[in-house]
């Protein structure tokens, strides 16, 4: 086995390390990194995590190889179900998501942790680039107790100073107490996880700060690939990638097909 983890494997490990046993986490389809990170947390140290997979509640630690599924509606991914989450009932009932962790994407993500899934262009009725729509990101980033931004594209067009439209609010423009004033129950995004690095948010300005760079990535690489001004501390540690045991779990049971190794 190649003991050097691929960037997406590092991302999955970052996600897994941030998860605590007992938390509730969603595993979507066609999002290999959050899927692997959630399952790695579940298998490595989360026997009491509630894993929502293909709109069911599943327990997967007894499953030798957890096959990928391409569609959230894949009946194959429902084989482990202990319960169904009827989608409208899930969305009509939010109280129990306070213990949840959510991973939010975006066609743009800005330095204050806001995400845009709507589109790009000044005129909303005639966008230059139409995005897929907010899906559930507006709400999930409010209801879950903990959330992160995740992107597979560390690119200045994605990581921008200011998103064209906010569909999921992070820290606005860094206003003090914005979320409390709006009555939003969680404290805001914890981090931005990319193929190059992890950002957290400075306590004072709420602006993205380089927390760690992935193995083999230089701080300058990150600066060059980022469209906003980064707060760079004096010492930037290297990201903790997967342990040997975690890498084994990833490659043999969670990502046997190698989606993270491309």
């Amino acid at each position, binding site marked *: 086995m190649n003991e050097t983890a691929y960037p997406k494997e590092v991302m999955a490990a970052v996600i897994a390390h941030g998860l605590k046993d007992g938390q509730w986490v969603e595993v979507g389809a066609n999002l290999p990194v959050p899927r692997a990170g959630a399952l790695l947390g579940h298998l490595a140290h989360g026997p009491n995590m509630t894993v929502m997979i293909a709109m069911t509640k599943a327990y997967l630690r007894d499953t030798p190889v957890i096959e990928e599924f*391409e569609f*959230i509606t894949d009946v194959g991914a429902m084989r482990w179900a202990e319960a*169904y989450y009827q989608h409208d009932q899930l969305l009509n009932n939010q109280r129990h998501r306070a213990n949840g962790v959510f991973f939010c994407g975006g066609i743009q993500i800005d330095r204050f942790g806001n995400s845009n899934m709507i589109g790009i262009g000044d005129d909303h009725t005639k966008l230059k680039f*139409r995005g897929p*729509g907010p899906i559930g990101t507006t709400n999930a980033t409010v209801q879950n107790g903990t959330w992160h931004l995740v992107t597979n594209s560390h690119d200045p067009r994605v990581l921008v100073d200011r998103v064209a439209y906010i569909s999921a*609010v992070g820290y606005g423009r860094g206003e003090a107490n914005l979320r409390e004033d709006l*009555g*939003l129950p969680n404290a805001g995004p914890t981090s931005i996880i990319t193929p190059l690095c992890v950002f957290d948010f400075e306590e004072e300005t709420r602006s993205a700060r380089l927390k760690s760079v992935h193995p083999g990535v230089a701080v300058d690489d990150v600066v060059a690939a980022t469209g906003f001004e980064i707060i760079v501390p004096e010492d930037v540690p290297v990201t903790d990638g997967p342990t040997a045991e975690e890498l084994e779990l990833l490659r043999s049971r969670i990502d046997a097909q190698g989606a993270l190794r491309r």
Partner: protein
Amino acid sequence: MSGVRASKVIDVADVAAQVEDGMTVAVGGFINSGHPMAVVRQLIKDGRRDLTIVGAASAGLETDLLIAAGVASHVITPYIGAEGFAGIGPAFRKAAQDGSIDVFELDEAHFYAGLRASAQRVPYNPWRAGLGTDLPVINPRLKQYRDPINGELLIAVPAIDIDVCLLHAAVSDIYGNVQHNGTRYGDIAMYNAADKTFVSVEKIVSPEQIRADPLRTSIPGATGVIRAPFGSHPYSADGYYVPDAAHIQGYLAAATTWLKSDDRSELDAYLDEYIVGPADHADYLERVGIRTLLSLNEF
């Protein structure tokens, strides 16, 4: 005793005839699964115009197709795409970028709050998430206000009233007692907000089979049920067949050409071959081919 219990079985053309230009029509399912495609195709064949399409909370290419065919002028859904096949529906992108479609921008939680308001016969339902975002700015129909008890800032999501709701499910008896396989997506929420609900099913079964497990009955009173094996093709039906990837990619290629080059010829050829051309659902399935259909096993 007088009278006989009436059968609710209805055919595709008669269902589509209930839809008039300008109506609000819900289309059930979820992304690549469970769409009532036989009826969706008929709406296009019938030349319906100016429909407001209430797509699923995650709508798929069935809604994209209704945009591509010029049937939908308004859409109410938080997502139109096809997961691994396409992150964003190409016809949806094209129409939204051209400004030729009105998008009711909202999150899936707002979507269900609006359906719920309709089901509860109240003008709106309150929701907290969305504050601090641009959703109420670009979609002022999501109105910010202060709640009447504590004065907290909230968003009023207006009722989404549906004229005709179109669903696809596993089975039904002839009396409109419908049962889904699987988690049912948001189909029940759409039914609860609709004046009329028509459900195409893979199979009509006996009333005794329905009564054997009443908990499984998801739609206890469809206005009509349609016999439509492979009725969700090219999308999946839980426990019956998987998505027809090649067919879906064929549509996507045609719609993407339209998006990228403004050239509708491939898209029109697709519409001719699979929608305008076939006389009915069986004829459509003939064109797809029985060998292809039988290859779409669940596992």
